[in-house]
């Protein structure tokens, strides 16, 4: 079954106002193009699940797409603060934000429980942490084998998950390498799944290395080719991270008006991600080149 779609179609078909949407990617393979398309299509009242935040969280907040956030780390990686987020949390400016906070381990466990259709997942951390006191969704169960009661976190089942990967075939068998974050779990936990990829490739390439598949086609609703779809994050084997962009964002986002202006110019006034990239300028990408480093092939051979 051919599941290829345009980004615009995929997002408009599979996302609804009020949904919980997971955009995952741990500083690598982040679905930035999909976040922009959500802004461009002016979705609202979304709750974003994003274990470790970055510029797209500030952008979605600045565009007023979000009323809730489920996360464990709310800075702009090593580039500084996310000021839209801080204004929301510190001053409810311009509006309050429902913030459902965990640790990274807690988010991992929540996605795992969601993917596994379990109501919750036990976790060995949190004893003595104020987080477990403050967040009423972190609970505990007795240990029927005689130990202490153990903390549990509830399943997280997004309405839509979007992940970005290096490649997929048109049926939606998705392959990725390098740091894989919590994407597979976020994908399986979700009711609907969009995958954006650097390249849609012939299935013979995918099928030459089946252990490389991180998400099998049968859980994918749409697959979209979006080159450079993770900028300013890196894609292993394709392009490097654009630290200047992330640092500049933290500087810019101190001013709420500057954020609005940026969103207007770079997202609302561009027709799609391709136009956005053109506006950013190709010189940017000239600096993000990578050296090649190919894996040694392995032999998948079976019975003659």
């Amino acid at each position, binding site marked *: 079954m051919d599941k290829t779609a345009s980004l615009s179609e995929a997002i408009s078909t599979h996302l609804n106002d009020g949904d919980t949407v997971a955009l995952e990617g741990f500083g690598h393979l982040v679905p930035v193009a999909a976040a922009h398309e959500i802004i461009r299509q002016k979705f609202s009242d979304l709750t974003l699940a994003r274990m470790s935040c970055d510029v797209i969280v500030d952008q979605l907040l600045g565009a007023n797409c979000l009323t809730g956030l489920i996360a464990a780390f709310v800075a702009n990686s090593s580039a500084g603060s996310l000021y839209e987020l801080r204004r929301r949390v510190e001053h409810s400016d311009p509006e309050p934000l429902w913030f459902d906070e*965990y640790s990274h381990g807690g988010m991992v466990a929540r996605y*795992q429980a969601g993917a596994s259709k379990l109501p919750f997942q036990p976790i060995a951390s949190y004893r003595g942490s104020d987080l477990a006191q403050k967040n009423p969704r972190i609970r505990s169960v007795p240990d029927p084998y005689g130990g202490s009661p153990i903390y549990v976190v509830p399943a997280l089942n997004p309405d839509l998950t979007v992940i970005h990967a290096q490649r997929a075939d048109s049926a939606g068998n998705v392959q990725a390498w390098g740091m894989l974050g919590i994407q597979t779990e976020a994908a399986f936990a979700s009711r609907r799944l969009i995958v954006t990829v650097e390249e849609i490739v012939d299935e013979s390439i995918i099928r030459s290395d089946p252990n490389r598949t991180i998400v099998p086609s049968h859980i994918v609703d749409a697959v979209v080719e979006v080159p450079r779809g993770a900028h300013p994050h890196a894609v292993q084997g394709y392009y490097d991270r654009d630290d200047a962009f992330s640092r500049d964002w933290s500087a810019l986002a101190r001013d709420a008006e500057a954020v609005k202006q940026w969103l207007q110019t770079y997202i609302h006034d561009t027709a799609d991600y391709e136009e956005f990239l053109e506006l950013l300028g190709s010189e940017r990408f000239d600096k993000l080149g990578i050296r090649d480093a190919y894996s040694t092939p392995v032999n998948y051979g079976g019975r003659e």
Partner: protein
Amino acid sequence: MTASTSEHTATKTDDQVLTSSELLTIHSARALARRRVVFAGHGLPTLAIALAQRTVAPEIEIVYESGVTGARPPDLPRTISDSVLVPGAASVIPMTHLFNYVLQGQRVDVGFLGAAQVDRYGSLNSTLIGDDWEHPDSRLPGSGGAIEAMAGAAEIFLVMRRHTPRTFVETLDFVTSPSPHRAAQSEVGTMPTGAGVTHVITDLGIMTRWAQDEELTLSAVHPGIDPAEVVRQTGWDLQVAADLETTQAPTPAELTILRESLDPTRIYLR
């Protein structure tokens, strides 16, 4: 967090001023002797481990939160998820495995953490400044994986660039990553099997503690630092070891490796 050169520790070595970052890195490296599996952030901990591999602990294996183990990056990583860590690494394990099997699985000997505030038992705050979780005066990044590192690693090394009464406090604004002492006061959840923070390495000296109910004790000061000054800069009545030592100044060998081999362009050694 930005690097800052601390006046009171600046000394001359080989015509070059010793920076606070160098001092902290070298003492972190020394403390890694006999450790093997180390969970690290980018920057100073990465450099400290690389230095330890060349000096006191050749067998150290580095593990990043992103799942990368045994990295040999051609360039210094800018974050723990920098793709420069991947080519030539020994493994990139799934993040579920990193959190469930490596950290929670108690496979880590030492975890490096930073924090905005630390208390006398080594509980850490990296969540907020203020007294209201929902509306803090200043919202900090949050736990990330810090809660899991504290709960799962055998020991935690805390590196604090500035030793002040605002960072070494009697009461944390928020207990993000609890010490075992703090955890023991709760009745719910799993007791950590590790010791919590065993080393705090600051610009003034080194504090250590080893057992659940033991406080951080000033065990060494850097050359030229008055222990009374350290006590003044600490927000609780800091205990000073009876056998207080003065740390050995960085050796030329350590400085050479650090400056010429590990960070020649001084990305982190500002």
